Each structure stands twice: as C-alpha cells, then as structure tokens.
C-alpha cells in the first residue's frame, strides 16, 4: 500500500471550464492570401511574356484600366450597386421563405408528406428554365431578377432547416412539451435554437446560390448589373471588362460570405 491519502470528493463541485484555444491563427490569413497573389503573378507573367495572346487573356493592367474607365463613367458602382441590391433582397426574402417552409415541413409529418414532393420537383428545375417565365410574368424590371434570386436562395435554406428539424434531440423536445411549451413557443425556445448551426450553413449555401441565380437573371434580359456587363463585354469583345466582371463577382461573393461568417460566429457564440 502506498501512504498517499485517497481523497473522495464528488467531482461535481469542481467546475471544469473548457477553454478553447486556436493556435497560430494570426498568420493563417497570409497563407490564404499567398495563392491569389501567386495566381496574379502567373497571370502577369503569362500576358507580359506573351504565353497567351492578349485577345484571350487581358493584362492585369488593362483590367484595372477598364475598372477605372467604368468607374469614371459611374457605371461600375451602378452595376455593383444594383447587383448587390438584387442579391440582398432575394437572399433575405428567399431565406425567410425557406426558413418558414423548412420549419413547416421539418415539424409536421402531414406537411412533409403533402409538400415535400412538390417542393423537391420545383427545386429540380434548372435556374435558367425559370427566366423566360419570370420575364413573361413580371417583366424586364427588378421584380423578375429578384424573384429568380429568391428561388435560388430559398431551396438551400429549406433543405437544411427541414432536415435538421427532423433530427432535433427528441429528449429536449419532450422536455419542452412536459413544461407546457408547444407550437410557436416550442419552436422558438427549443427547436429553432437547436438547428442554428444548420440554419447558418443553409444561409451560406443560399448566398452562393443567390449570386449564381443573379448572374443567370442578368445574363438574360437586363440593362445593368454585373451579369449584363458580362454579356455586353462578350458581345463587344471587351475581354478586359469580362475579366473585371468575373473578378468583381469573386470579390463580392467572398465579401458577402465573410459577412455571413461574422454572423455565424456571433450566432454560434450565442446558440452553439
């Protein structure tokens, strides 16, 4: 026997606070920036050493010049503004509809059996197939574009929310019911908070889809926006503007995704 005293203390009086640490994240962004910088360098070399003819690949400077040129004529900001507005409106409205439909289908067996085959079929329709119909119904104005973005944003949120709500811990739901929570109060107290991580990943997918559907909407029948810039540049052979539109779309998509990422961090801190 060892002489050590054995202390019997119930473990539950010590608070085991789990501390999370992320090591070395300060320099991680450098790693993420290095690849775009390398690609940019490769692009510069490819054009200046004439590996690729200029009519196929414009020089980086000409793209920058094109940006300044469009900005000087107030077109760049107008295009960015109108495209962002369409994405924002469509994303917000589509997410709300997706959340509502997803909640309905995820919570009610009846709604699931009744609605999900139809919604599944509507989801399977390719984005461009909606465009002629929307233009016919809603005209060439903003409505048809925002409507298409709504369609794009709706389904990812709907799918993730409906799926996650079906798998909320049944013990927590039983607790909620036993304590008199039902209907909307049970949804907002137990079920929705439990699926916050799924909602966020749905929102991220929805945002990516929103940009996708925006370009689809603007490519066919529009007079402004980044999709219009794409199709117009193609028609006029302005490859510098074509590249500009692609770069701007990449930057805007990444920026808006980062914004959702900030929202994600905030929400997960609160509900995660």
């Amino acid at each position, binding site marked *: 026997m060892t002489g050590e005293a054995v202390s019997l203390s119930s473990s*539950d009086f*010590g*608070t*085991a606070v*789990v501390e999370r640490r992320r090591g070395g994240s300060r320099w991680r962004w450098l790693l993420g920036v290095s690849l775009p910088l390398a690609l940019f360098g490769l692009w510069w070399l490819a054009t200046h050493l004439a590996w690729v003819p200029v009519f196929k690949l414009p020089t980086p400077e000409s793209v920058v010049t094109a940006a300044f040129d469009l900005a000087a004529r107030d077109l760049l900001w107008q295009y960015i503004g109108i495209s962002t507005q369409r994405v924002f409106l469509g994303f917000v409205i589509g997410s709300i509809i997706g959340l509502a439909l997803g909640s309905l289908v995820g919570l009610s067996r009846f709604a699931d059996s009744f609605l999900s085959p139809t919604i599944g079929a509507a989801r399977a329709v390719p984005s461009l197939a909606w465009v002629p119909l929307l233009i016919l119904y809603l005209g060439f104005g903003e409505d048809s574009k925002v409507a298409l973005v709504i369609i794009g944003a709706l389904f990812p949120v709907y799918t993730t929310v409906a799926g996650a709500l079906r798998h909320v811990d049944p013990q927590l739901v*039983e607790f909620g019911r036993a304590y008199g*929570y039902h209907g909307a109060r049970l949804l907002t107290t137990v079920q929705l908070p439990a699926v*916050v991580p799924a909602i966020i990943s749905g929102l991220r997918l929805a945002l990516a889809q929103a940009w996708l559907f925006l370009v689809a909407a603007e490519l066919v029948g529009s007079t402004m926006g980044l999709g219009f810039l794409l199709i117009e540049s193609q028609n006029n052979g302005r490859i510098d503007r074509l590249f500009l539109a692609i770069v701007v779309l990449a930057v805007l998509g990444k920026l808006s995704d980062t914004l959702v990422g900030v929202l994600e961090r905030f929400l997960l801190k609160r509900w995660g």
Partner: protein
Amino acid sequence: MRQVHAAPARLGAGSRGRGELSIGGSPVAPVDQRSAVAFQEPRLLPWRTITRNVELGLPRGTAKQDGQARVAELLRLVQLDHATSLRPRQISGGMAQRASLARALARNPGVLLLDEPFGALDALTRLTMQDLLLDVHAAEPTTILLVTHDVDEALQLADRIVLLGSDDDTPGATIRRVLEVGKKRPRDRGDAQLAILRAELLSLLGVENHHPEDYLTQAIKAQRARRASATAAGT
C-alpha cells in the same frame, strides 16, 4: 398532504392501463401546471446558461423581477450559485442534474415527478444528491413521486414505497406492495429496521440477498435486545 413517494420499478412505458389520475381531487391534464418532471438525463438546453435554463421552468406570465429572484433562490438551494453563467457542457453530471431539479422546482409544483433522477450518476455523487434532495424538500415541501431502481435510495428518501411489478401475461405494471417506511429523515444508512425492509424489498423484487435463513428473526431479536438495553440504560 406532503409526502415523498418512491416506487422501485419503472412505470410501464408505452402500455397504458385504464384509470384516473388526480391531484387534490381534480383530474390531471396532459400537461399540468400543478406538476413538474425531472428526467433521468438533465435535458438542459445546451445553448442556454444554467440560469436561463432554470428560467424555462418558471410558470408562464411570471414577472421578470420575481422570476429572476426565484431562479437565484433555487440555484442557491441546489448549491449552483457559483455556476449560474456556465453552459451545460461546462458542468458535471451531478451539477446538471441539480440544475434540472431547480428547473422543475421553478414551476412551484404540487407534485414533483422525478424519473430516476440520480440513476446516471456515480455512486458517491448519488448519495450526496439524496441528501441534497432532502434539504430541498425541507425548504420546498412538495409531494415528490420518485421512480428508482435503487432500493437503498427508496429506503433513504421515501415515506411510502410503492413496489411495482409486471406479470408476464398482462401488459404494464401493477402495484405489488405498498410499504410505509415510517422513519424520520435524515435516516441512518446502516439502520437495522431499514435493513429488514431492504431484505424484504429485495426478495419481493426477486433478488437473492444471500441472508441466512433466520436473518429476519435474528435482526428483530438484535433490535429488541438493543431497545431493552436502551430502556435499561434509561432507568
């Protein structure tokens, strides 16, 4: 009537018998404000702090200030006042179960249902929790219906033990025996009378207790002898 009940068997889940349930003469609603339940698992919402979890038990329409005061009082009662702002995953099983108990008490129940509340805890924590439950019951005297498989727990806590069992041919459980413990709490865990009850309960539950054949007679004899010597010492 303020009594603690315990039944060392599970209520037959799924198979419903016929009958009526009433509290104080009026029938029980499916979700009754007069009763509260705590489960074998704490079932705390992982995204809420302990305080905000206990708040979930407050009756609907409680004024905010009253609610906060009540929650703070309950957390002090279950000795969690040092952990109010922690999340469920940051605390131990015993602490979580105490939070669950506080949440049930927040409903001010006439009947508190505890479904194997300490079943998932380690042996020592379980004993601590039993003592804590007695303190809580002294401070918040409500009727407690406690379901347990632990005979010692029933003997330690209950005024009346309802022994449930099921026959092979009939679905659900039936009452096999009702035993009045009739001892003041807190009880000596090594009490001889309780040991007799324990032997009886275990044999009713079909557990071989390996006592010698004349165990009961011997135990009763020993007790009489002790009582006699105590009276002798008293005179």
